[in-house]
């Protein structure tokens, strides 16, 4: 039952399309013929490779690191030989340095080089290369180190998985609830919080049941209405605590710290077993022959992953890394799965948003301001941005856009609202608008 929580403003409920994979247990994808491991799989400073071509590396061994605070080291997900180091295309369409590994014939995927560091739990989380696995890829250690003047009272674990199609977090909660709960407790202890809440959307009853069966003292399970973007940080905090993150402030200003459930499980693995982040669950679904939830080694090429899933089926228009609301359309399938790749979703023609030629008029139907979870007026922000009226857009709080995409989703004339608003937002940010 959904009880007692605040309902965030706006939002939409797109067809969930999770049924193809929500009941499928996670299976491991075999070691591919090569792995391409980017040195930047996170927000922040890219790593510098610490290995050279020809080196033999072991699974779990450090491949790249950097001393910057906002960064995350990268580890080998298989044992093998470094065959190349150089720029590669990523899911985001950028080119970043990457280490390519030819895997050894013999692989023991149960074994790895454990991370050993001097220091506290935060240092261990950093050394394990853990980043936000919901897709934002923000280095977890930074979130675990809030400004000293902000006391964290509540740790919120995000198990909403409000994006259509994706079921990787759901399967993690169903199959490994104890890892999620353990991660939540570790996070609580690190930041000194009192309360831990794991939030799950109402469309995942099996996950709720599994978590409840494994919950520990002081860990609450909250069921939230199924409504996108329930899992957006600000909307989640509002739903659970009834507090709005103040404009321009860190979410921690509400006393809440939000981590994705998969990130929490990875933190538990890192702290209890010294396991670096080398693999993750990826939902491969949509127009593929064998949709599923796959445990994928970081660096596996999307093309290999899709081949393992039986290949693309029918007339595929877009292949998305992540969910269809916020994910990135792939320009090439020969890009590696990284720490933030929650899903590979193949959208058939007719399912994918159609490309629209030319300007579409706003018919002032009112759907976008009604759906915007931030209380913005997307139609006017898009118009201002399109006309390069940056100051006008900034004055109408363009900076508060969370880029969830519900405005573009609901628009009947299919104006590229979010795309235009992104322009206005980046212009405002480059002008230092706070």
């Amino acid at each position, binding site marked *: 039952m959904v009880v007692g929580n605040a309902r965030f403003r706006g939002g939409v409920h797109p067809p969930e399309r999770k049924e193809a994979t929500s009941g499928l247990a996670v299976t491991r994808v075999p070691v591919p013929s090569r792995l391409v491991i980017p040195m930047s799989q996170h927000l922040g400073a890219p790593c510098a490779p610490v290995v050279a071509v020809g080196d033999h590396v072991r699974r779990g061994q450090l491949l790249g690191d950097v001393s910057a605070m906002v960064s995350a080291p990268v580890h080998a997900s298989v044992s093998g030989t470094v065959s190349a180091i150089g720029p590669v295309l990523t899911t985001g369409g950028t080119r970043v340095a990457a280490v390519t590994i030819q895997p050894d014939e013999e692989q023991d995927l149960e074994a790895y080089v454990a991370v050993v560091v001097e220091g506290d739990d935060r240092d261990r989380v950093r050394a394990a290369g853990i980043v936000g696995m919901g897709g934002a890829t923000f280095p977890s250690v930074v979130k675990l180190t809030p400004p000293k003047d902000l006391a964290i009272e509540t740790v919120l674990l995000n198990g909403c998985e409000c994006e259509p199609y994706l079921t990787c977090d759901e399967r993690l909660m169903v199959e490994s609830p104890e890892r999620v709960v353990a991660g939540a407790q570790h996070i609580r202890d690190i930041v000194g919080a009192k309360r831990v809440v794991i939030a799950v959307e109402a469309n995942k009853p099996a996950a709720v049941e599994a978590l409840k069966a494994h919950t520990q003292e002081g860990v609450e399970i909250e069921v939230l209405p199924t409504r996108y973007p329930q899992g957006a940080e600000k909307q989640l905090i509002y739903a659970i605590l009834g507090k709005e993150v103040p404009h321009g402030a860190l979410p921690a200003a509400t006393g809440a710290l939000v981590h994705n459930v998969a990130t929490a499980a990875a933190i538990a693995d890192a702290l209890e077993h010294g396991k670096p982040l080398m693999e993750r669950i990826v939902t491969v679904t949509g127009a593929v022959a064998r949709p599923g939830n796959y445990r994928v080694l970081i660096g596996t090429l999307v093309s290999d992953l899709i081949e393992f899933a039986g290949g693309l089926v029918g007339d*595929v228009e877009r292949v998305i890394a992540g969910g269809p609301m916020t994910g990135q359309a792939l320009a090439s399938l020969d890009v590696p799965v990284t720490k933030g790749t929650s899903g590979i979703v193949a959208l058939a023609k007719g399912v994918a948003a159609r490309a629209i030629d030319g300007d579409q008029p706003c018919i002032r139907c009112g759907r976008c301001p009604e759906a915007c979870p931030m209380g913005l007026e997307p139609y006017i922000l898009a118009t201002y941005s399109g006309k390069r009226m940056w100051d006008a857009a900034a004055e109408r709080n363009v900076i508060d856009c969370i880029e969830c995409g519900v405005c573009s989703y609901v628009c009947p004339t299919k104006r590229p609202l979010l795309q235009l608003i992104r322009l206005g937002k980046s212009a405002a940010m480059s002008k230092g608008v706070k």
Partner: protein
Amino acid sequence: MSDTAQHVTVGPSPHITSPATCTGIMLWVVAALVPVSVWAVVSMGWVAAQLLVVCIGTALATEAAWSALAKRPGTLTDGSALVTGLLLALSLPPRTPWWMAMVGALVAIGLGKMIFGGLGHNLFNPALVGRAFVTLSWAGVLAGGQWFKTLEASGAGLDAITGATRLGIAAADRVASGGYGFDLAAQYRPLLWQNLEGSLGEISAALLIAGGLLLIVKGIIDWRIPAGYIGTVALISWAFGSDPVFHVLAGGVMIGAFFMATDYVSSPMSKTGRLVYGIGCGLFNGLGRFVGSMPEATTYAILFMNGLAPLIDRMTRPKVFGVVKTRA
């Protein structure tokens, strides 16, 4: 390597969109108006059909011609010109001369919409701009003998009335004697089901209400506009000591509240704003009837509120999440 890569396109997120389209919305509006249009033709005869054809045909032709002359892509498929033509026809009396209707449709699309830049850019409801032009230009023709004159034969016991509408007679009686020459409550049934005095769209308030409710249920129009509109007209009628039910059923209130005032482009976008706007439409429509110089004021009440819509939007901006102080 995957040979499917070359078939894959990129684009910005979100990668899925809701099934709502502009054309789909317009066609729902048309669908909601089909029963009343058909019933008007059945009840009033082929003159009504002729009016529908002339208005819709001229509206479509004007839009197509304008786009062609302006060397812009055609916009007929968005369905908005169809809706404008249909609404204009429903707002005119059946015996409106064909050339007058044609001018009305030309003005509706040309001066009401295209001159502003087409769909989405007009300040006023195009159909009402067309209607206002016709009623102002040929006021005598429309106010007098152009209503459908079969009342004597309709068996409703209204043989004394030929030229004016029930609403017009009510207004005239009120001015002349302070009372009514007939029982307003006896008019509910004909106004709901078959009212031959008036525009095509006044043929049946029940069918208009049914169409309006359909659009509300489908999420196409916001209930706040018709609720505010009709509620306010009823309230004002009551305040002036008249019959609220008669006044919301008679004249243009129903088609105005459900189909004219709810035009997306010329109405406010926020929920609060829509309620304010609906109440404003009802206020001016109601006041127009009791203290104005015309028996009916729907057209001008809505056009006036159209002009205020941008201001209402400005004054009813949503609260931005996380922003405590609203910026003026």
